[in-house]
């Protein structure tokens, strides 16, 4: 079944990835990550001094705060923060700096117009990962890359865009932890949900599709950390 997507992209192709290392003042690491126009900004500080109440004697405390584009953080942000925290924790080595705090603040830079905003969640996870890598002071054992997948009946598409999100029948975000290179990817989190029922086969198919797209995210992140792509994309982001 043929499906024409905006910008003429393939069903397994994400929008152009944009990563900018902002260098925010007063934090240890920060990054902006965008799938096309869906952009999130993350900043990381740590290991820093922890409040006595949140102190953990054997691990560092990992705190995730999400700020929506408008209004103050409410239940939705808190719930999202908890899921993103859960997705990132397996890739962090928290035992190396006990009794400290690692604080991750994610600022959404795109509005959530529709019910499903999995692309934004994926951008948030990727922005957090790049910010953690940029900080360089937090030990990690993997790199988490996330991609959203949606179903526009009956076609599965990677990284649904804004107008596609409005007509999705099913969607979800898939986060993969990359250990030793590209081939060592492990799905650490997903929230695949559907208006109708879905079966295991479909979920496996989504996972396959997402993992291929997550690999391109990983490669992009590797380029940025290596210092190749950041500069040229900075101009691009300014003009848009």
């Amino acid at each position, binding site marked *: 079944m043929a499906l024409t997507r905006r910008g003429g992209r393939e069903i397994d192709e994400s929008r152009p990835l944009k990563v900018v290392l902002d260098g925010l003042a007063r934090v240890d690491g920060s990054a902006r990550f965008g799938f096309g126009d869906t952009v999130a900004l993350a900043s990381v500080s740590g290991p820093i001094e922890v409040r006595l109440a949140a102190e953990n004697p054997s691990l560092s405390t990992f705190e995730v705060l999400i700020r929506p584009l408008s209004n103050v953080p409410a239940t939705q942000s808190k719930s999202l923060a908890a899921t993103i925290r859960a997705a990132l924790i397996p890739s962090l080595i928290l035992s190396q700096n006990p009794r400290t705090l690692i604080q991750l603040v994610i600022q959404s830079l795109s509005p959530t117009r529709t019910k499903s905003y999995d692309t934004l969640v994926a951008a948030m996870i990727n922005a957090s990962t790049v910010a953690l890598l940029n900080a360089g002071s937090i030990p990690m054992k993997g790199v988490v890359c996330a991609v959203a997948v949606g179903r526009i009946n009956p076609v599965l598409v990677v990284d649904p865009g804004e107008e596609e999100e409005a007509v999705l029948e099913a969607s979800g975000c898939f986060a993969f932890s990359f250990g030793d290179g590209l081939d060592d990817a492990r799905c650490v989190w997903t929230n695949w949900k559907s208006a109708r029922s879905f079966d295991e086969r479909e979920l496996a198919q989504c996972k396959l599709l997402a993992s291929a797209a997550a690999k391109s995210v990983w490669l992009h992140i*590797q380029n940025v950390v290596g210092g190749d792509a950041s500069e040229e994309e900075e101009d691009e982001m300014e003009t848009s």
Partner: protein
Amino acid sequence: MSLVLPGQHVAAQHVNLKLGPGLLQTSGDASTSAPPIIATRAGTLKHNANGSKWWVENNSLRYVPAAQESVIGVIIQKAGEGFRVDIGSAQAASLDGLAFEGATKRNKPNLKIGSLVYARVSLAHKDMEPELECFDAQTRKSEGFGELKGGFMVRCSLAMCRQLLDSKHFLLPMLGARFPLETAIGVNGRVWVNAKDVREVIGIARCIEAVDPNGGGMDEAGIANLLRNLGL
């Protein structure tokens, strides 16, 4: 020179292998002979000439104390016999009042809150607060450590500090050729500088900020130009 991301395996092998910052030997599964060594941060993988010491070189802003490193701290509190010192790490370090050259029970240095000290990390353990000392424990001589009087403290990235410690780096010899200056470099992202004239101190601070890989990474020619503009 190779880029590694966290989780990537590192093929480091040597009979007397030492792993530096950014590398971790995982427990691995029993089936494989050697437990894999993974990188725990993104950066450039480096090793010494004979391959016995490996580490990952990267830049960061947050200092995590390690034993025997020279740091610059700010006294934040007097605590009984000693002082609490902010060295930029998660926990404040403690500096004993007797850990100075020539200090005795009767004659202890009287450091005020807010004064700067150049000290060595004598104890760094993840479960304990770091401890500092301002003398060599064997010789009991200060070896340049102690209170830093006057001058100015510049903050920079950790990679910048390490570069300044390298005697082959161009910046300090270049500045030293123009006017006399004093520096104390802490690897915790703090550099103390002093010169006769305030203009010169400002010039040094500007140069360090400009050369910092986090804030421009200016090269030798650029610095020569900057100094000319500053009239130094």
